[in-house]
């Protein structure tokens, strides 16, 4: 089927098999490889992207379900000048990553969280990131990064 969606502000359309998963559409058709396939079973969150502004696991959605809708991946966060998004800056400043595999999903989950809850407590951050696993177990710095990003967002 023909699938058309807005990815990071640009229209992407492609003829794909009906069974194509959104994560494969993003990686193989849109050519955006920041979104990782981790567990492939909607547990780990490495494939998290924003669909119409809300975090979703792109390994458990069909590309067809995103047809006509708007998707944002990690590549869509920095502005055109290459200036990092506040959440990206906070992950770097707080060393919120180790091997980096879970990071795109963590960042996208954080962007969605801060839209829904701009000033989360530490406990709320930990609860909101339940669906994102870090096999390096770098959670403390990730939580610090999310809190720092929330603080910067509030200040600006």
């Amino acid at each position: 089927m023909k699938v058309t969606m807005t990815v990071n502000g640009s229209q992407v359309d492609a003829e794909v098999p009906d069974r194509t998963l959104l994560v494969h559409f993003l990686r193989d058709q849109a050519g955006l490889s920041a979104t990782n396939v981790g567990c492939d079973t909607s547990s780990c969150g490495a494939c998290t992207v924003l669909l119409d502004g809300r975090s979703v696991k792109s390994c458990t959605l069909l590309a067809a379900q995103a047809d006509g809708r708007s998707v944002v991946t990690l590549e869509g966060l920095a502005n055109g000048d290459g200036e990092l998004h506040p959440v990206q800056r906070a992950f770097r400043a707080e060393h919120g990553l180790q091997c980096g595999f879970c990071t795109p999903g963590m960042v996208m989950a954080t962007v969605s969280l801060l839209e829904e809850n701009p000033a989360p407590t530490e406990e709320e951050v930990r609860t909101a990131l339940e669906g994102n696993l870090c096999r390096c177990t770098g959670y403390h710095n990730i939580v610090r990064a999310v809190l720092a990003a929330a603080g910067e967002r509030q200040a600006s």
Partner: protein
Amino acid sequence: MIPAPFTYRRAWSVDEAVDLVARDGEDAKFLAGGHSLLPLMKLRLAVPQTLVDIGRLAELSYIRDEGDHIAVGAATTHGELAGSGLLARELPLLSRAAGQVGDPQVRHCGTIGGSLAHADPAADLPAVVLTLDATLVARGPSGSREIAAADFFRGLFETALEPGELLTEIRVHKPAAAGWAFQKFNKRAIDWAIVGVAVQGNRVSLVNMGQTPVRAAGVEAALTGGASARDAAAHAAEGTSASDDLNATRAYREHLARVLVRRAVEAAQA
């Protein structure tokens, strides 16, 4: 992992969805959020030939106060249930339980109707609608009918829905009985409940203590007779048929049921 090939169709109305599924018979399935169905399809535990997408139907996505009852559209997501001010006031058990399904990403996609129609005994919302004595509305090629939650869950992944019938609405009478609580125990937050408990007034239902959600009849009778939470909870495992699996033995599940029922009833009565 990707699903076996199938034909995807998007329905633009409930009538069209029912027609499309009727056309392809038992090889067709409704797709709402897909968070129960797509994982099964990746594992080839479900191999439908046609998926009819109802996930964007506004006519299935609502939470309304209808005076004597609350009506919830079947394609309302867990996140929408959890964020509803109306539910927080009228049916906090439903909104709080929905807010504990899976994780935020899952709650942005998964729907109440999908969860009920999937009928996983480890899912949270089937036990909640059983406790709330909800009425489920289904539409098929020959029209709509109402099914009591008590008659809806027939077995493991089996419901009273006929082939081609679509769950469209969940109705709960108001006001709900005073006092509610939802408790579940799992190893990681995103996992299915090893055991869960939903309480509203003196009605108590258990998650994952059998092939379907079950009312804890012994607990309810004890509570109605004036027993304390502790004494009533001692009856929690009576009549249940919990399974042994790698998460827990049956005996451990029975222990958990007694502990969680005591905690839930105490919370509901507090």
